[in-house]
């Protein structure tokens, strides 16, 4: 959910941040790597791994790691756009799978943050296995930015704070 990790630099740079983001935890376990970045987008690579199969008898990556890849690329695209490492929490993430990734192929996830408001950030992105014009999946997501919240630093709880975000308020 929240991508708040302690020792980040003040001005966010996805390439630099990747050096410590992917040392451990879930994204380190997956082996995520920095691939490329722009003003408002970030691309990460999920290398092929034999034990992340979706089915035992087919050498095709499970869809779950693709969600992790796109969730992480989304958070980093938001920081890249805001030029700031403010905590964000995923509210909603939708993944549409067009086709399975090729056997034994790495998958890249490129996510763009196309809009930020006071309390929400909107992202869309593509997962591909080498050719971005032949996507494996499309994603769309909404994240809550927590910096604008007076209760700064708190992650949304189940008592309703999360529902304030998707309003596009400005």
């Amino acid at each position, binding site marked *: 959910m929240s*991508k708040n990790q302690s020792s980040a630099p003040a001005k966010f740079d996805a390439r630099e941040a990747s050096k410590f983001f992917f040392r451990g935890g879930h994204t380190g376990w997956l082996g995520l790597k920095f691939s490329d970045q722009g003003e408002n987008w970030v691309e990460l690579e999920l290398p092929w791994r034999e034990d992340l199969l979706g*089915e035992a008898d087919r050498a095709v990556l499970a869809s779950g790691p693709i969600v992790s890849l796109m969730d992480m690329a989304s958070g980093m695209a938001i920081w890249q756009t805001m030029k700031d490492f403010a905590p964000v929490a995923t509210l909603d993430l939708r993944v*549409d799978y067009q086709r399975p990734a090729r056997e034994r192929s790495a998958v890249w996830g490129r996510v763009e943050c196309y809009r930020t408001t006071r309390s929400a950030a909107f992202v869309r992105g593509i997962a591909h296995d080498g050719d971005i014009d032949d996507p494996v999946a499309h994603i769309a997501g909404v994240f809550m930015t927590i910096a604008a919240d007076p209760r700064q630093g708190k992650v949304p709880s189940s008592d309703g704070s999360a529902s304030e975000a998707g309003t596009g308020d400005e």
Partner: protein
Amino acid sequence: MSDFKLPPYADALGIEMCEFQDGVPVLMVEFGPNVEGRPQHYHGGATAGLLENAGYAALRVRLIEEGREAQLKPVNITVQYLSAGKSRPSFAKGRITRLGRRNANIAVEAWQDDPDRPIATAIMNILMA
């Protein structure tokens, strides 16, 4: 039920089948580095992985019961994050909303202490080829 096995991805992440409730498998994952995002909290991707596996498991078990063999192909998944997953075990269980000949629609909930207070939910569409 013994025919049913979790995929390699679920094994690698540390997901286990912990019980059956009304014939539906409940999956569980212990908190640990594999699933950690922000310190002491689940990464959203790990939570999604648990939800997705619970959705597939519910469908696989039902298909086995009905004597159907099918290759499952994900069409889409929409995950709603309701509250932060803390450093405790998480559970998930799927409910088949509609099972057709070619498509299944599945709703999944994940929780930690109280099944009535889900931390995340998912809606999945899965094609059966």
